[in-house]
């Protein structure tokens, strides 16, 4: 099955072609939905079989390259469409196709009756195609094509309801914002790629990384490459300073938020950093930057999440915050912990979004949690799965989020320092608080909606079954990565599986932390009990004592307003970046450069061309002699030139 891995990429493309070109003619939602989800489903099965085959291979043979065709080969630049099947890419491929498949199935129910049903599934399949190229590509070019492809699909799907309003602007503006902010990151990524080719004369992963392993003393080069790549990652994975697009991306349909803006695309940056771990490990300064940016984003976004009232906005900030965790892990050299969190996060965050989608679906697209309340009796399955996901993300012991989060917290202390751990643990506490605020306001307490207008009901089976499967995964998904403190020496299966990929990077970083398991247990106990306390507090406040929260908001009105307005980051960018650009565009580029200079040139050229064509027209009255004369002049000129040059 390893050699058939390209099918996992081509099948979604086929689905895109069928639904995209003939979807309108097919018209039948069942057929379109079946094509859309089955292509992803089969891809998942193929990835799974490839995984099983890889597990049965000896460790040193687990890296396989499947070459599809050489794209271009000019000089030393040799780019081929070939795919790297190894421990890391298989994990990512399984997440993308597995969670992707469930979300496709869910969408059949969620998008039911939408006039652009076929368009939606075509874009979703195209997204899976691009994302699979991103995670499976064996060189930076294929990765970049996937990178741009997912960006395009993200743009198309955020703007899916392109004719509707979103907050202060329109959906189309939100889509544009996502695209433009991502361009900034992509530009950094491109620069990084150029620098890699300049340094290593290759863009192939295996070649670049094996050279990087032996190259010493080029710290500044590595630094720049890592920095540029990381700028790319901050764009795609919504980190400070380029995170502003993700909350606005919630303008898209909820399954899109689940698939693209929670489970898969936004983790592409983490994947890329992990893939290029050896480059980042060779630039310790930049690695520290990665950790600090990740940590700051985690805390920053979690605090904003505390006060948001739009159900999807809370989840969006939570995603930004969790992505920050992943970069923190990568930044302290715990790459496998980062990927582990990518996986568990994909389960519970997709579940949270799909659960939110189920609620929104039954509440006629009302998204304000202040207008929910007491929904648990109307939609029991949604409630049950949602609360499981909330427990998982808050790190309730035994659930998936607990293992991945605590691994990150531990490494942030063991490989980093106490401040990293403290802020990380603080984020965990905040996370538990806003998640249970969300759960309480939505499912518990008095019903704050009018029964005339809203008739909450449970969603159809096609939507609830994916929720149940994801809930099961959110519970047991973490059990393959149980830390050594519980599972004994070399007991962390997930870590052992990925270890060969990150071996070089870890050797280069050389953390020989002499930390005892007792230390680990103490820190874990502190963070878990704090989170549990925070969960309980949030639940108590928002179900029984809402006035405490209101009093708090009144007492710290300034701080509350700052949080509610997301630290005024959008306004800050508006004033410092967007306005100056717009003003200078308007005042200088438009009024002077464009109107006077370019239009002048264009109009001038047009005048020249018009007179030119009128001259030509005069020659074209059928007088072939004139043509011959011009030819003759040309020939004479060439002959003169030959004689003179001799």
């Amino acid at each position, binding site marked *: 099955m390893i050699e058939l891995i390209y099918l996992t990429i081509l099948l979604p493309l086929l689905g895109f072609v069928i639904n995209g070109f003939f979807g309108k003619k097919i018209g039948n939602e069942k057929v379109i939905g079946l094509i859309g989800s089955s292509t992803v489903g089969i891809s998942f099965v193929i990835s799974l079989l490839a995984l099983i085959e890889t597990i049965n291979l000896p460790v040193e043979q687990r890296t396989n390259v499947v070459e599809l*065709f*050489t*794209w*271009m*080969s*000019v*000089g030393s630049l040799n780019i081929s469409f070939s795919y790297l099947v190894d421990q890391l890419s298989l994990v990512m491929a399984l997440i993308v196709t597995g969670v992707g498949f469930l979300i496709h199935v869910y969408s059949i129910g969620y998008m039911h009756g939408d006039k652009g049903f076929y368009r939606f599934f075509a874009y979703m399949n195209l997204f899976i195609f691009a994302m699979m190229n991103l995670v499976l590509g064996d060189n930076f070019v294929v990765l970049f094509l996937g990178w741009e492809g997912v960006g395009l699909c993200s743009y198309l799907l955020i703007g899916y309801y392109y004719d509707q309003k979103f907050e202060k602007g329109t959906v189309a503006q939100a889509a544009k914002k996502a695209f433009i902010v991502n361009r900034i990151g992509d530009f950094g990524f491109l620069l990084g790629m150029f620098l890699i080719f300049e340094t290593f004369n290759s863009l192939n992963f295996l070649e670049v990384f094996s050279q990087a392993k032996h190259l010493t003393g080029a710290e500044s080069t590595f630094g720049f490459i890592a920095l540029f790549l990381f700028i790319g990652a901050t764009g795609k994975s919504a980190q400070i300073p380029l995170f502003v697009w993700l909350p606005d991306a919630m303008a898209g349909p909820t399954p899109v938020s689940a698939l693209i803006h929670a489970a898969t695309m936004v983790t592409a940056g983490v994947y890329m950093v992990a893939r290029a771990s050896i480059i980042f490990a060779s630039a310790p300064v930049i690695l520290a930057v990665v950790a600090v940016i990740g940590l700051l984003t985690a805390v920053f976004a979690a605090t904003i999440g505390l006060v948001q009232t739009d159900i999807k906005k809370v989840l969006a900030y939570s995603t930004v915050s969790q992505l920050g965790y992943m970069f923190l892990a990568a930044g302290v050299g715990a790459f496998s912990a980062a990927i582990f969190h990518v996986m568990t996060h994909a389960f519970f965050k997709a579940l949270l979004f799909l659960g939110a989608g189920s609620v929104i679906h039954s509440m006629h697209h009302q998204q304000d949690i202040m207008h929910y309340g007491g929904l648990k009796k109307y939609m029991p399955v949604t409630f049950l799965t949602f609360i499981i996901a909330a427990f998982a993300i808050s790190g309730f012991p035994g659930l998936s989020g607990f293992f991945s989060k605590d691994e990150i917290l531990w490494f942030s202390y063991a490989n980093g320092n106490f401040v990293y751990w403290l802020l990380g643990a603080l984020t965990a506490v905040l996370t538990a608080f806003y998640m249970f605020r969300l759960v309480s306001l939505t499912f518990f307490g008095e019903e704050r909606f009018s029964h005339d207008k809203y008739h909450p009901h449970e969603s159809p089976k096609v939507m609830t079954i994916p929720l149940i499967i994801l809930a099961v995964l959110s519970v047991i998904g973490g059990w393959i990565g149980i830390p050594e403190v519980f599972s004994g020496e070399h007991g962390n299966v997930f870590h052992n599986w990925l270890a060969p990929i990150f071996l070089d990077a870890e050797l280069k970083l050389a953390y020989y932390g002499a930390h005892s398991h007792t230390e680990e247990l103490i820190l874990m106990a502190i963070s878990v009990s704090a989170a549990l306390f925070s969960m309980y507090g949030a639940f108590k406040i928002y179900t029984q004592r809402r006035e405490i929260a209101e009093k708090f908001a009144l007492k710290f009105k300034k701080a509350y307003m700052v949080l509610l307005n997301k630290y005024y980051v959008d306004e800050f960018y508006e004033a410092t970046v967007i306005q100056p650009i717009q003003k200078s565009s308007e005042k200088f580029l438009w009024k002077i450069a464009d109107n006077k200079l370019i239009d002048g040139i264009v109009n001038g*050229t*047009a005048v020249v*061309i*018009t007179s*030119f*064509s009128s001259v*030509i027209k005069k*020659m*074209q009255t*059928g007088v*072939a002699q*004139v*043509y*011959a004369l*011009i*030819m003759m*002049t*040309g*020939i004479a000129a*060439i*002959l003169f*030139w*030959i*004689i003179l040059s*001799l």
Partner: protein
Amino acid sequence: MTANTEIFQLLPHLVIGVGIVLSVVIEISTKKSESILPWFTILIFVFAGAHSIINVYDYQILFGGMYAIGGVTAIFNFIFTIGAAIMVLNAVDYIKKSKMNFGEFYILVQSSVLGMMLMAGARDLFMIFIGLELMSICFYVLAGINRSRMGNTEAALKYFLLGAFATGFIVFGIALIYGTAKSTSIDQIVFAYEYFITDVLFLTGLALFVIGFLFKIAAFPFHMWVPDVYQGAATPVTGLMSTTGKAAAFSVLIIILSAVFTQNITNNFEILFAVIATLSMLYGSIVAIAQDNLKRMLAYSSIAHAGYMTIGLAAGNIESVSGIIFYLTAYAFMNLGAFGVIALIEGSNEENLDINSYSGLNSKSPILAGFMALFMFALAGIPPMAGFFGKYYVFVASIKADLTWLAIVGVFSSAISVYFYLRVVVYMYFKDSTSSIIIKNSFTGLLAVIISGLLVLVFGILPDTLFSIITSVLSY
């Protein structure tokens, strides 16, 4: 091998030659020849094309050094025959609707293709000349095949007059070359090229010879006939002339200058070609902006494309030859496709050639609009269409030859050309339909467009398959 059996090595040529005779017989003997001849023509073309490409690695010199088969020749034969097959497929309904369904149309197309094949395989100046005349005379007649239309006749006459004028220089050039080199064999000329090139008479002869072919490829300043002829001739014929005709002329230029390309001899014509390339690119791209008639626009664009390919001649290294050949292949299919769409839309009397006829095409025929957009993107050189790689390979070759400035001019000119190509796309997708054009259903016409479109995509997504064949056969 004796000359008696050598003739059988030329199976594609024989098939087409016998096909011409058979076509004449079919035309005379049956009344239903209009429905037999197109498919017969396509059949022999596809056979000849397939035979050539299968035997691409079987390079042989035949007839005492007069003629070559296999190698680069085979690739050119592939372009000629498959290009002509697509054109015939496109023309089946077209010539019916414009009431010029004469059997000789197909016979002339077959003869012109045979002429091109002779040009590409020739290893002797006389052989080249025979092929050239066979092709050109057929083209003169084809340009004026629609006798009832004034524009058609005008185009044919102008093409003939100027073509004959250019041929005169080719013959004069051959005379001078023979006078100094004492041979018409290209092998001999190439072998002693370095020795002869210092001789002013040889250099002048070679220059005149090259100029004659620059006329055929429509490079500045020998392009004057192009807009009139391309606009006046029937659309499928224009498609054939602009693609395969150009490829045939380039095949001769590549052969005659092969000493420069393969032996690292100083390229005496470097500056000449560079100047001509620059002027052709800029002139073609800038003047095309002002055109509202699509056939005329593509005529100017063909001048610009001749310029891009001439960059390869200026660069004068082995990479540039492969670049030119790749470019020709890509250009053949994207241009044939574009003319194929035009032929479907222009109506029975070529009345819908204006760009306004294309407004809102997407709502009327999304398939045609989609393919037209594909061809426009390809011609503009946007990946992953084949046109991008044509330009890319040629530009890389010119940078290697220290002609970076020429590549920059090329990129600059491409940027200009994007304007008028995308203008068509804008009209098709973003303008409301103003005219009430009825697009006639033509299955064969659409099929020709689809095949060209697929080839453009295949060569764009898998450029290396073709490119590696070209590079490996160039070593012969």
